[in-house]
C-alpha cells in the first residue's frame, strides 16, 4: 500500500483551513450565548489541523504551525488555572465568574465573562492534545505521505 498525495484534497484543505480556524474562534467566543464553547472550538481547530495532516502528512502539519503541541497544553492549563486563581486573589471562590460589559459605541455593547479566559484554556488544551496525538501517532513510522511525490 503506497500512500499517494491527492492534489484535489491538498487544494481543498488549503482553501478551507483558515475558514475552519476562524469558525473555531467564533465558536469559542460565541459559546457563552450560542452553541459552541471552548471544547467545540478546540475540536474544530483540531479538525482543521487534522485535515492538514491528512492532506500533507506530518511535515505539512509542522509547516503550518511552529509552536510545539506541548506548549498549547501547558499554556492552556496555565490559562485555566490562572483564571481560577485571579478570582481567588480578588477574594472570591476558585473559578467564580465576573461579568464585564463595555459600550463600544458603533459596535454596540459587548459583554464578556471572566470564564472566557477559562474557555480559552479549554480550547488550547483540546487543540494541544490533538496536535500531540497527530504528531506522535502520525510521524511514528516511515509512511509519511509527504515523502512520496504526487
Amino acid at each position: 500500500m503506497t500512500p499517494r498525495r491527492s492534489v484535489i484534497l491538498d487544494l481543498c484543505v488549503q482553501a478551507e483551513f483558515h475558514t475552519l480556524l476562524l469558525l473555531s474562534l467564533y465558536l469559542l467566543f460565541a459559546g457563552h450565548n450560542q452553541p459552541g464553547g471552548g471544547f467545540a472550538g478546540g475540536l474544530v481547530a483540531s479538525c482543521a489541523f487534522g485535515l492538514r495532516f491528512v492532506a500533507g502528512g506530518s511535515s505539512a502539519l509542522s509547516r503550518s504551525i511552529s509552536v510545539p503541541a506541548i506548549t498549547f497544553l501547558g499554556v492552556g492549563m496555565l490559562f485555566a488555572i490562572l483564571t481560577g486563581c485571579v478570582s481567588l486573589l480578588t477574594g472570591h471562590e476558585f473559578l467564580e465568574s465576573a461579568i464585564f460589559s463595555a459600550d463600544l459605541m458603533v459596535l454596540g455593547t459587548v459583554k464578556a465573562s471572566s470564564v472566557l479566559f477559562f474557555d480559552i484554556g479549554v480550547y488550547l488544551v483540546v487543540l494541544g492534545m490533538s496536535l500531540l496525538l497527530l504528531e506522535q501517532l502520525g510521524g511514528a513510522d516511515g509512511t509519511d505521505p509527504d515523502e512520496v511525490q504526487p
Partner: protein
Amino acid sequence: MFVLILAFGCVAAVLPALAAHIGRGVLYVAAAVPAATCIWGIWAYGQISDSGPLIEQAAWVPQLGLTLGLRFDGFAFLMLSLVAGIGVLVFIYAGSYFHAEPIIGRFAATLLLFSGSMVGLVLADNLLALFLFWELTSITSYLLISIEDEKTAARSGAMQALLITGMGGLAMLGGFVLLGEAAGTYSMTELLERPPSGSVVTVALVLVLIGAFTKSAQVPFHSWLPRAMNAPTPVSSYLHSATMVTAGVYLVARFTPAFADYSLWRPLVISFGLASMLIGAYRSLRQHDLKLLLAYGTISQLGLMMLLFGVGTRESIFAGCTLLLAHGIFKAALFMLVGIIDHQSKTRDLRKLDRLGATWPVVAATAGVVAASMAGIPPLFGFLAKEEALAALGETGFAWGVPVLIGVVLGSSFTVAYSARFVWGAFGPRPVSTIPHQDSVRSEAVGQQVPKPSKMFLAPVFVLAVLTLLFGLFPSLIDPVIARAYASLAGVRAEHHLALWHGFTQALALSAVAIGAGFALFWWRLRVEKLQDSMPKVPSAQRGYDRTVKGLLEASDAVTGFVQHGSLPIYLGVILLTMIVLPGIPLLSDGVMPDLWFADSPMQVVVGLIMIVCACAAAVARRRFAAVLLVGAVGYGMAALFVIQGAPDLAITQVLIETLGVAVFVLAFRHLPADFVRSKFRRSQGAQIAIALLAGVFVFLFTLFAIGARTEPSISGEYLDKAYSEGGGNNVVNVIVVDFRGFDTMGEIVVLAVAALGVAALVRAKRSPAEVES
C-alpha cells in the same frame, strides 16, 4: 521568628544564581544568616530571662483549626546556639574545603535550607509543624549526602538515610496524630502540661520513639549514619554529628518530663540508648577510616544522651543538656579535623597516615585537646558532661541504676580508647598490624610531604577547641545557659551548678576507672583487635537493611509481574468484568424499571435503526478500518438524535469528537495489522464474546435503570434559571461547563493533558533513542 525561618529560605533561593558570579564566596554570604540567627538568639535569650518563653502564632489552615506556633525557651536557645553557631563555623570551614566546584551554589543553598529547617524544628511548638521541619531536615540531608551525585556510594548512602529516617518520620507522624487526638491539641506546650493517658498513648509513644531512634541513629536503625559519611565533610560535621542527629534526642528531651513515668518509656529509651552506646563505641574501635570511627562514636554518644534524657530524673536531664552542648562542640571540631586531613593528604585511612603530628604540631595539639574532651578527660568541657552523667546515674534510686551505670562506665572506657585511637591514628606513626591482607593498604604512607592547611581552614576548629577548653576551665560561663535549658524542660529552677571540682565523689572515681580502662584498651589495642576479629559475627544492621530493600524490590517485581502481565485482552476483560459485576449486583437487586414508551418522533426510529445496523456490522467486521468507520457512524447517529431532541451543543461536540476520533484511530491503525487477528483458541474467543455481550447488556440495563432511578427533582430547571442571572450566558450547556461545574472541567482538561502526554510517551517508548533525539 517566622521572619527568621523565612530568611533562610529566601537567601537560599538566590545563592545558586549568586554562585555563578562570586564562586565560593557564596558560602560566606550564607554564613551571614546563621550569624544573624545567633545575634537574634542572644537578644531573645535576654528577653526570656524576664518574661518567660517567647511565643508566636500564625493561622496555618484555619479551616482545620491548625495553628503554626513557634516557641523560644531556654532549651530552644541551647539547640539554636548549636545549630546557628556551628552553622556559621561550618560555612566558613566549607569556604576552604571546597574550591571553585560547580556544585558550590547548590551546596550552599541546600545547607542553608537545612539550617533553616533545623531552626524551625527547635522552635516549632505545633507537633505537625515540628514534623514538617523534621522531614525537611531529612530531605535536605538526602540532598546534601548525594551532593556529589556522580558517586554511587554517595547516592546509595543518601537513599539509605532517607529511607530509614523517612520511615521513622512516618511512624512519628502517626504517633503525633494519636497523641494530638488523645490530648485534643497539637500544641506541644499544652500536650506536655496535661499529658493524656490510655493505651492509645502507649502506642503513640512507641511510634514517636521509633522516629526519634531512626533520626538519632540508634541501634538497630543506625546503619544509615556510617553510610552517610560519603557526604562532603562539612555536611558530616554539621548534620551528622552536631545538629540533625540530635533531633531525636531533642524530641526525647522535650517529652521526657511528661512521659518518663509512663510504663514503657524508661525501659525502651534506656535499653536502646545503652545498646547504641556500647555497640557504637565497640564498633568504633575497629574502624580504620577516621570518619567512620567518628561516625560510630557519634552513635555511641547519641546513645548516652538518649539514655540520660530517658532516665528523666532532674540530675540526668541536666547532664543530658550539658552533654548535648559538649558533644556538639567537640564532635563538629573532630569532623572538621578529619576533613582537613582528608583534604590535604587525600586519605583518611589511619593505616596510611604516618607521623602527621610531626608535620603539623599545632593541629595535632588541637586535635588532642578536642579528642580529650570527647574522652572526658579533665579539665575539658567533655569531662564536666561525663561527670554530670555519671553522678546523675549514680543517684537515680532505681533498681536498674547499678547495671546501667556499669554499662555507661564500660561505654565510656571504649570512648576513651577510640578517642586515643583517633589521635594516635591520625597524628602518630602507622600502626603495626598483624593482619596480613592489609599489607597492600600499608604500602603507601602519607605524612611528611602533606601541605599545611591554611589558617582560614583551621580557624573554625580553633574556635571550637577554645570553647571546649574555656567551658571546662570556667564552667560558670556556660552554667546559666544550661541551667535555663534545664529549667525550661524540667519546669523548676536548677539548684545544681556545673563545676570542675565536686570533691572526691563516686563519679570522679568512676571517671578515673573509665579513663584508666580506656587507656589500657588502647595500650593493648592489637590484642583487642585480634579479640574483636575472633568474636563470632553477629548479623549487622547494614545487612538487615540490604535484605529488606532487596526483598521489597523482589516482592514488588512479583506483584507487577502478576498484575501487569501485558495481555491487552485480559486487561480489558478484567476492567469490563469489574464494571459489570460491581454495579450490576445492586442494579439487579434494587433497580427500578422506568415506564417505557416507544419513540417521540418517526425520525428517531429511522436513526435508531441505522445505528443498530451499524453497531452490529461493526461487531462482525473483519477489517479494523471498517469497524472504526462503522463505530463512527453510530456516533454520528447519536449526534442526529441530539439534534432531534434539541441539543445543538451536544450534537456539535459529538460530531466533532467522532470525526477526530476516527482520524486518530486511523492513525493508530497504521501500526497494527489491517485485519483483526482471530484468536487461535476457541475457548478464549468464546469468553471474549461472552464478556462483550454481557458488557453491552449491562450498559443497556444501566441506562434504563438510571432513567428510572431519579428520586429528587432534576436540577436542570435551576440551572436554566440561573444561567443568565449568575453565569451571564444564554447557552446553559456552556455556562454549566465553564462556570457551574468549572471545577469538573478543570479536572477533565487535566485528564486530557495527562492522557495526551501518556500517549506521546508510549509512542516514543517504542522508538529507538536516536529517533527521539532527532
